[in-house]
């Protein structure tokens, strides 16, 4: 039935796409007043639209007018660099735009426009339009300036060592952040506007020659296919270009950190930056990336690897622990060490519910608390979490509603699930499924479930790259960053699974070595 | 058993229209045949008809044959 729904949607989409977008071009009129009126009508006489008219020149004054939108422009700049010079003009002969452009306007970005649409677009993005009576064209003076959030450390991806800056809501800032990190001319930003109403600017970033051209084309194709009223966040883009929309696993990666994004670009991936969201998406996204953190590369080798394996462990814990607990406690008692079994039996003595119900129930309670903690304002949120932890956890056990083991299990699961931020959603979903399976079939259910998920993962593809690579299919060269994180100087090739045109990342044999007579130098 | 039954019925109901829509009569025939076999078998087992244990009988036959040609087993 899902397939049918999909078909339906496709049909609708076709119907929508069929009428071609009429791009009516209205030339500018030579009469200033008429133009201004037209513009004001287009903008519906918005309260934030400023429309100033004035005379230029002494002997034969010409009526001129500037239009800009308050809040998007730099007032001082307009006053000092546009109005002042224009009002001080001492010319005898009649002025026209060329003259002004050449010798009076002290503005960097400056554009000559003939049509009403381009003018409006310019004005709406924060330019100032200068029109002169008797001329069928106008000047767009770039005076963009608006309030924006400064660059701050992202909350979601906090790291211990390494850069502290994060992306902001402004596209330009973000591209600048990337440029600052990758100064090679091959870094490309191809922008396009998506969304009929919002006209959101979207930028596909990649490094020419490192990213595969086919991949870039594919990304652009998928982006072009999007035909919707408005894009308000990267997430909505993501859902349009995702390979497996009905899978619990996301096949598009995201990051708030320029350094991470730059690293992925360097590996031959493509980044999608959307104006208005501080989150940048990178494709193709492989399963194992979700276990990699910038810190892995900043910390010492052994610690970093330990942490990575702990992350793997944590993911499995957060997915399987409740299920395993249920399976063991209510199906396979013979697999529990005797003393542990006695403790568990003693703890669950006389609890009203079965292990499955307990696990599921406590899981739901936890999710509720988490949601509350996030949504509520900080101080209240803490209060909620305390209440939840103490009251729910403690009281239920004391009241004998649930056994202590379940509470421990759920708490452990919850904590573990936070170690792998980008898989929280999938883990939360799978956890429930596995608990149910365990409740019905015990270990059999869990094993079959695992096989099922494994097949599913192996069958997924992210922009043509197998989602589970380099583990299934095995790509030995790429295991250097999955099984263990080898020293950086050993990673001399780019990931093979994302086959980038130039495979070599760095020179081989650049292992740090002590110079022969280094010691003597030290002594002397 | 009933679950299998339901699944098979549902599957047939799901796939038949598509095959008809795509005018794949041969597919429809084969798939339909196999599925109907399944449905019938599932139905019989569901209502508790004693199905002969095919392989079991076969092995009995083989053992008889062995004895006929005089192999001690």
């Amino acid at each position, binding site marked *: *039935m899902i397939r049918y729904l999909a078909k339906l949607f496709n049909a609708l989409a076709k119907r929508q796409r069929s009428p071609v977008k009429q791009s009516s071009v209205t030339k500018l009129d030579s009469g200033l007043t008429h133009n201004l009126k037209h513009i004001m009508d287009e903008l519906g006489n918005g309260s934030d639209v400023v429309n100033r008219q004035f005379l230029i020149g002494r002997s034969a004054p010409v009526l001129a007018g500037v239009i800009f939108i308050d809040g998007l422009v730099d007032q001082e700049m307009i006053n000092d660099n546009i109005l002042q010079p224009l009002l001080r003009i001492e010319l005898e002969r009649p002025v026209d735009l060329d003259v002004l452009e050449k010798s009076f306007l002290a503005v960097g970005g400056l554009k000559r426009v003939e049509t009403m649409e381009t003018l409006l677009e310019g004005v709406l993005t924060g330019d100032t339009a200068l029109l002169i009576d008797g001329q069928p064209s106008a000047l767009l003076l770039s005076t963009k300036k608006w309030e924006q959030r400064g660059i701050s450390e992202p909350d979601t991806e906090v790291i211990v060592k390494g850069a502290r800056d994060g992306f902001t809501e402004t596209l330009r800032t973000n591209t600048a952040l990337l440029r600052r990190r990758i100064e090679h001319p091959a870094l490309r930003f191809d922008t396009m506007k998506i969304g009929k109403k919002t006209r959101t600017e979207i930028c596909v970033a990649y490094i020419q020659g490192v990213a595969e051209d086919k991949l870039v084309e594919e990304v652009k194709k998928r982006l072009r296919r999007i035909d919707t009223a408005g894009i308000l966040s990267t997430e909505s883009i993501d859902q349009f270009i995702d390979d497996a929309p009905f899978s619990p696993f996301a096949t598009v990666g995201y990051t708030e950190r320029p350094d991470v994004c730059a690293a992925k670009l360097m590996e031959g991936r493509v980044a999608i930056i959307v104006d208005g969201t501080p989150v940048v998406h990178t494709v193709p996204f492989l399963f194992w990336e979700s276990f990699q953190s910038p810190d892995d590369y900043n910390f010492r080798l052994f610690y970093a690897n330990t942490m990575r394996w702990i992350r793997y462990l944590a993911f499995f814990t957060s997915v399987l622990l409740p299920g395993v607990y249920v399976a063991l*406690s*209510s*199906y396979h*008692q*013979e697999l529990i060490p*005797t003393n542990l*079994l*006695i*403790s*568990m*039996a*003693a703890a*669950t*003595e*006389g*609890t009203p519910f*079965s*292990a*499955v119900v307990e696990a599921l129930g406590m899981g739901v309670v936890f999710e509720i608390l988490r949601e509350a903690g996030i949504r509520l304002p900080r101080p209240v949120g803490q209060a909620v979490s305390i209440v939840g932890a103490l009251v729910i956890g403690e009281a239920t056990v004391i009241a004998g509603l649930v056994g202590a083991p379940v509470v421990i299990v759920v708490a452990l699961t919850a904590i573990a699930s936070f170690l792998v931020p980008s898989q929280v959603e999938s883990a939360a979903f799978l956890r429930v499924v596995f608990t*149910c399976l365990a*409740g*019905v*079939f*015990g270990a059999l259910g869990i094993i079959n479930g695992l096989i099922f998920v494994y097949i599913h993962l192996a069958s997924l593809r992210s922009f043509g790259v197998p989602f589970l690579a380099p583990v299934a299919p095995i790509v030995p060269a790429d295991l250097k960053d999955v099984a263990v994180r080898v020293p950086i100087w050993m990673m001399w090739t780019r990931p093979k699974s994302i086959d980038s045109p130039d495979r070599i990342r760095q020179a081989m044999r650049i292992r740090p070595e002590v110079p022969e007579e280094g010691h003597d130098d030290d002594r002397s | 058993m*009933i*679950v299998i039954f*339901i*699944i098979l019925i*549902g*599957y047939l109901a*799901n796939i038949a229209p598509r095959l008809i829509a795509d005018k794949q009569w041969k597919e429809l025939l084969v798939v339909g045949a196999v599925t109907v076999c399944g449905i019938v078998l599932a139905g019989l087992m569901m209502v508790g008809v004693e199905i002969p244990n095919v392989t079991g009988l076969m092995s009995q036959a083989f053992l008889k044959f062995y004895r006929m040609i005089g192999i001690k087993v």
Partner: protein
Amino acid sequence: MVLAVLVCLLAGGCWDRQELDELALAFAAGLDYDMEQKQVKLITQVIRPGQMKSAESGGGSTGQGGQKASFILESQGKTVFEAVRKASFQISRRVNWTHNMVIIFGKGAVKAGVDKFLDFFVRNPEPRPHQYILVADGDLKDILNFKPNLEKASAQTINGMMNNTGVTSEAYPVTLQEFVNDLMSNTKSATAPLIKVVGEGEEQKLQLVGTAVFRKGKQIGRIEPKETRGLLWVIGKVKSGIISLPSSDGSEISIEIVQASSKIHPVLDGDGMHVHIHVKAICNLGEQLGGENAKPKKMIEFQQWAEKEIQKEIVHTIQCSRRMKADIFGIGEAFNRKYHKRWRTMEPKWEELYPKVKFSVNVKAKIRLIGETLIPLPAH
């Protein structure tokens, strides 16, 4: 469709589910046989988890409410399985055998032959192959009812004792797996430790009092702890233990066995069957009351005494086994391995042949360490 499947699964699901608070864990099984009624008598020791865990446990096994941490169920049946189910029938929960630790046979059982009781424990998936097999010397019920001092249930005590026999090596702990293996052999006679409750009132304690010897599942005799060690010497299962003997000048010395190994060489030639048993033992000097310093020469003397002592133990055991015509060492299998062809003829009348086997025992003892003192404390 998917929904329908899920509903069916969840609705019909949970067939085998057994919550922890729905099962009664059996820790020990006592098996006995009633000859005239032809009834298997099963005594099951079931534990109460709550009491097992309770911190304040007055006098070992009684928890809060004065309840014992374990209690026993008595049931009868034509077969073990029947009795097992009747045991569950007596209480509110189903008896779960997955954590059973010990199986103890009573007098009747060993007389009737234990083989007919074990099939259940091997066939059924619940019981584990690591349960210890014992034979009760005395009343079965006393043993299972025994109030241990350290543990909560007597089964745990027995289990611990079994794991701990290495300290003297005077008992031979047998797991279900090994026992069944021995029973399946035609010639080797299985053995199982004997256990009994000794003492009265508060001084009651469990004690391993030797080893029961079986033939074809029936008990045909017993050997004493010392002789048990002899058996262990031969099959190389001695872990540790103390040999104490009078030194030349009358003062006692005791030698600690550290590790031991053995080899059995069967030889079959014209004038009958010989078996050469080589035993190697590595010892430490554990204690020396008076006497001279631990000079190498002295040590060699000690070694020779130790060897004699060990040899004595072994020979004694061999005589016992001859008397019982019970091949407890698995000599027959040794012959089978070496002289497979001729063994076929010997196997049927092995019971008669066994006593005729000529044993030659040679022991090599070695004293490595002498403890932390060089000279013994002067004894006055």
